[in-house]
């Protein structure tokens, strides 16, 4: 039985890196005595796969990982037991059964993520909210947003415009819906630095906070990769949506479903009787 766990990461836990969060959850699973399945062999390990890893310094309301259960447990009880033994800054939100197909787990289906980037300036907190609306529209209105992406081996110019599905001013900062996952991934830092440069905002005097809100998969099934379809595009939905076209809100956003909504709560056994 496959289960998807959604959790929040906040406070001091933002300084714990992805690998340590994994280790932490392995220990939470044991303390909470969740009947998780193991691989076989001399050093059996838990069957666990995380969706898009969160960078150090970011907080989140929508982190996910999938596990395999050896026996069933009700969602309510599992959430309760896990939270009872989790450290402050780590909170399980939901524990839901998901489809058994291999392709539906973890990293493979992540398509987009929402972020809230706080931009705080001591002297004039309202400055951003007032002036952002037009700057963002102009920013998104560009035919392309070329940025230099640095990889370990090389520097590469990429157009990030098609990867921005939504961007609008919110609270003291910016709300973003960006492409995410193993195929097309855009980090919020890259968008914000391009935006600051475009709008002539001096990022020196600003205190940034980075928060992930949610992660999504495409609602409609994927099209199979075809020889004439380039690799990065093979995860596009079949419906005729062109990501990146139009104003603040892209058509792509309409076609997304949260990873959580792909699962269903497990009722306790007594309820079935």
């Amino acid at each position, binding site marked *: 039985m496959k289960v998807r766990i959604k959790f929040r990461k*906040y*406070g*001091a*836990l933002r*300084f*714990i*890196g992805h690998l*340590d969060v994994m*280790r*932490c959850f*392995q*220990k*939470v*699973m*044991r*303390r909470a*005595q969740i009947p998780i399945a*193991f691989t076989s062999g*001399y*050093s*059996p*390990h*838990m069957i666990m796969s995380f969706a898009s890893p969160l960078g*150090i*310094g970011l907080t989140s309301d929508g982190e996910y990982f999938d596990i395999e259960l050896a026996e069933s447990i009700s969602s309510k009880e599992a959430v309760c037991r896990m939270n009872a*033994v*989790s*450290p*402050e*800054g780590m909170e399980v939100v939901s524990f839901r059964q998901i489809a058994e197909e291999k392709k539906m787990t973890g990293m493979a289906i992540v398509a987009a993520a929402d972020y809230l980037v706080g931009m705080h300036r001591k002297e004039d907190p309202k400055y951003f909210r007032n002036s952002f609306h037009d700057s963002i529209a102009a920013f998104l209105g560009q035919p392309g947003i070329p940025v230099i992406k640095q990889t370990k081996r090389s520097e590469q110019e990429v157009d990030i415009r098609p990867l921005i599905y939504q961007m609008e001013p919110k609270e003291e900062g910016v709300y973003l819906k960006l492409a995410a996952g193993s195929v097309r991934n855009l980090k919020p830092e890259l968008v914000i630095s391009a935006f600051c440069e475009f709008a002539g905002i001096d990022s020196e005097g600003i205190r940034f906070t980075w928060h992930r809100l949610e992660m999504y998969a495409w609602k409609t099934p994927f099209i199979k990769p075809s020889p004439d379809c380039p690799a990065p595009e093979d995860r596009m939905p079949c419906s005729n949506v062109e990501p990146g076209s139009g104003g603040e809100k892209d058509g792509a956003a309409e076609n997304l479903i949260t990873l959580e909504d792909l699962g269903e709560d497990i009722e306790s056994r007594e309820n079935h009787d």
Partner: protein
Amino acid sequence: MRKLALPDEILLNIEKPARYIGGEVNSVTKDPDEVDIRFAMCFPDLYEIGMSHLGLQILYDMFNRRKDVWCERVYSPWVDMDKVMREKRIPLFALESQEPVRKFDFLGITLQYEMCYTNVLQILELSRIPLHSSDRGEADPIVIGGGPCAYNPEPLAEFFDLFYIGEGETVYDALLDAYKQCRHDKKSRLEFLECAAEIEGIYVPGFYEPEYHEDGTLSSFCPINPHAPAKVKKQVVMDLNRTVYPLSPVVPYIKAAQDRVVLEIQRGCIRGCRFCQAGMLYRPTRERDVELLKTYAKAMLENTGHEEICLSSLSSSDYSGLQELITFLIEEFQGRGINISLPSLRIDAFSLDAMQKVQDVRKSSLTFAPEAGSQRMRDVINKGLSEEDILDGAGQAFEGGWSKVKLYFMLGLPTEREEDMKEIAALSDRVARRYYEIPKECRHGKCQITASTSFFVPKPFTPFQWASMCTAREYVRRASIVKLAFSEQLNRKSLKYNWHDAEVTVLEGVFARGDRRVGKVIEEAYRLGCLFDSWTETFHNEPWMKAFENTGVDPDFYTLRPRGMEELFPWDFIEIGVSKEFLKKEWNRAAKGVVTPNCRKQCSGCGAAIFQGGVCYEGKN
């Protein structure tokens, strides 16, 4: 939500911020207004090292069981953080409350190895506590030292207000109660230290004065305060079944050196190896009940969520309930994805069978510690291990499927001759040859024998406390003799040889048997930038040599000089139970290569029987 001492800009720009944020599972938070005593417990090394130490977890648990005490943890900020804290003038803080150590009542520092001494000064300086005890005022925390290096506290005497000699479980309560009483009675810092000096096991260095002969050796070491006793008695817990044990140890977010449940099965060792300080300090050997250990194992795995459990003791094979315990651990936990990590056990049918059950034989290696290459040398150190034992053990292991063996040796042992050094290579070769005696179809390719040597450092309270050391050059020469012997052997493919650093060895030697005058060398080296000396990447010998020069202290006095049998040692004021007479007898037997039987075979009258328990009284009830 807890407020962190460090802002995001700092935490995001240093290595592993998790070292500094606290809040780990099972860490203890209390309301500062509800407690009387704030205790900062420090392991003066990196978080990952300090978090792996069982002793501190025991004390942390013990202190926090008291309603009136809040004990928090402090570790050495790594060099990147050290730099930031100095630049931005951020005081060192404790992990739980994130509050400055300076505000605490006590700063306890555990002294596990000599090469952490400059880190002790870093802790004090970053905490803004004066380095010298004599410069501290009423508002400064009481700085207390403990752990194995506290058995010769003299090199650090000026930096500590008091030392706790022995196992922490016995008189800490009395010490804390005395502190509360003194504060209630509005007594001064000095008056409290006088109270403390009257508690058995507590040493207040400021109340003693060493005097020296013209040749530099100690002539007398006497108390200069009427509250201080002439002798300080080591503290031991006689009943390990009735002492605190941390069933919910703190679980770090980041991977610590020991990321597992540690089950302490016994204290002390019956063997009596003459180089081993722990073997003498922790006498008499005391066991913990096997049934109790089973319940501890279960509770600790449940409370931590660790995926591994290991046994801790100086010599697990001598624990009488070992078979029962290991069988229990395998049966109870192996099916639940828990790794069982076995300590280095004496190789016999049972231990090989147990190891085959818990590890992948072909991937794992077996470790032997013959300590010396020749039989003569092994008799000198009282290792009580014959070549036959080693080759038989290796043979059984090879037949059981192992093909990787690690061998640990020491170089520079007393009476060592060139043939003893060469025997290290020869013995390793004979182990390899034993592999090729098993039928070809049972072998798994070549065998891999890795021999490592460390250089011997004489320690206080051992029969070898009278031994002279060698110069760093001489150590390197000895290692090259071994290396040459390896390279002259026919089989070079399956044998590998490594040796440790010689310069660190010499420094360890100075601190291990140093006196009060060594303190200024440590302080000078620290001023010259020495920090994290136990780490290869941060150790630099030149500033240390400069520090000796600048302070006019001769390292050779502490390492090379032969010590007379009647010499008064700086640590002689401490009573560990084992008598100096016994150590002398053992030193003389070593010179003759005479072996002394282990405690279970025959009592040799070491003196530890005064504690009235443990192995000394086994079968005598």
